[in-house]
């Protein structure tokens, strides 16, 4: 069973979002997603400064097996991207919730979090996919 932290919010398309102490939102893909993809080889990230709307395509992750679009769970301006993934895309496999993060946004509407899945809801999605 893959790791699904309680404190995060999720999309059924396997992205997670974490609201940091400073109010910014960090986005990445889940442990379940990296396990399905296998070794990640390239990650395309959004431009810093671009404005995203929840549900927008924000990048692409390519693994040895497949290419997969990344969607943003939350709206806002992109304030940082994880440059470390350029040289070490395997961070996504080895540490999907910390060093393997994708990008950060300054949320324009934290109310959007309420419409996202909690850990329990996301666990159900993963289980239904496994069977």
């Amino acid at each position, binding site marked *: 069973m893959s790791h699904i932290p309680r404190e995060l919010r999720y999309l059924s398309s396997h992205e997670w979002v974490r609201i940091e102490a400073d109010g910014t939102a960090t986005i990445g893909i889940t442990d379940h997603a990296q396990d399905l993809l*296998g*070794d990640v*080889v*390239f990650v395309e990230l959004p431009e810093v400064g671009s404005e995203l709307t929840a549900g927008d395509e924000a990048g*692409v992750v*390519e693994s*040895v*097996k497949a*290419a997969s679009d990344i969607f943003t769970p939350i709206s806002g301006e992109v304030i940082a991207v994880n440059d470390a993934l350029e040289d070490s895309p*395997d961070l996504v496999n080895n540490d999907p919730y910390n060093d393997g993060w994708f990008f950060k946004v300054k949320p324009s509407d934290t109310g959007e979090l309420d419409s996202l899945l909690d850990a329990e809801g996301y666990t159900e999605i993963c289980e239904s996919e496994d069977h």
Partner: protein
Amino acid sequence: MGNKTALYNAHLAAGAKIVDFGGWDMPIHYGSQIEEHHKVRQASGMFDVSHMTIVDVQGEDAQAYLQHLLANDVARLTSVGKALYSGMLNDNGGVIDDLIVYRMPEGFRVVVNCATREKDLAWMQKQAGEFRVTLTERADFSMIAIQGPEAITQTKKVVSAAQSEVITSLGVFFGLESEGWMFCRTGYTGEDGLEVMVPNNQAEAFWNALVAAGVAPCGLGARDTLRLEAGMNLYGSDMDESISPLAANMGWTIAWEPQTRNFVGRAALESQQAAGDQPRLVGLVLEQKAVLRGHQPVFVEGVGEGEITSGTFSPTLGYSIALARVPAGTQSSATVEIRGRQLEVKVVSPPFVRKGQRVYK
């Protein structure tokens, strides 16, 4: 649940992720297929290939039968142990399967693919016709491929002294029996190494001894990236019954001489050759952040269109490579459409990597 090889429990114990492959439950990787890939290029790794089908061809007419059945000519196997790669074609010149045939002390041994087992056996039986041959499937063997620069040294450590001597004596593309096993200096990775046929009841002990010697278990994922770097075809992706060997980079496996040898598919190949209109299977290289994948369309300006037959990220090179079937007039460049973008690719002659080094120009 699919068929299981004698090594299934050993795979689970090693943490394998299991997938269905041609009706068999096989390991796709044991954690990271890229790490497994590097192990084979830099040291040694091993693959359970017991799902492949081994058939002994014996009897008075064994040689004449195989000269009829195969596009390559087993008369080239001038000594016991010598091996040959060949296509087995249908009457239209399409590839039913690709295989390796070894000359044995008596008759021949043929190794064909797993997903094609039933149609291969049916075709081989049908073509036997009046030939005095017996075909015997050897399901009593498991097969382990040990590959990489250290593969032979490591294997010699865990077999008997007599078997070790046999391994030492093997030339490249030779296979010899010893104490009920068969050691073949063949593979599907572009590295030196062995493919070992071992009786089922000894397979797990042999596998575990190799693990203890430091040989890394590797799954089908790494097997695919390694074979693609080595420019080797995968049946069902790079060729099938609708594809001529001339369109699959397998022209070198057709033995045209002697002209009197009327192998299955010969007439069709001769008219294809005369027409000169067969497409080519070429290598593609993309040095950008994207991955070439099977079935992506390839555009060659002023010439026409083709398609990628196998594509992947090359862990050795750090960018993407592919095999693609393109029109005969294709030169050194083409474009591939990936997610709506046209990306420039280099057209090269495979292989891409041999013995750990980039080899294409």
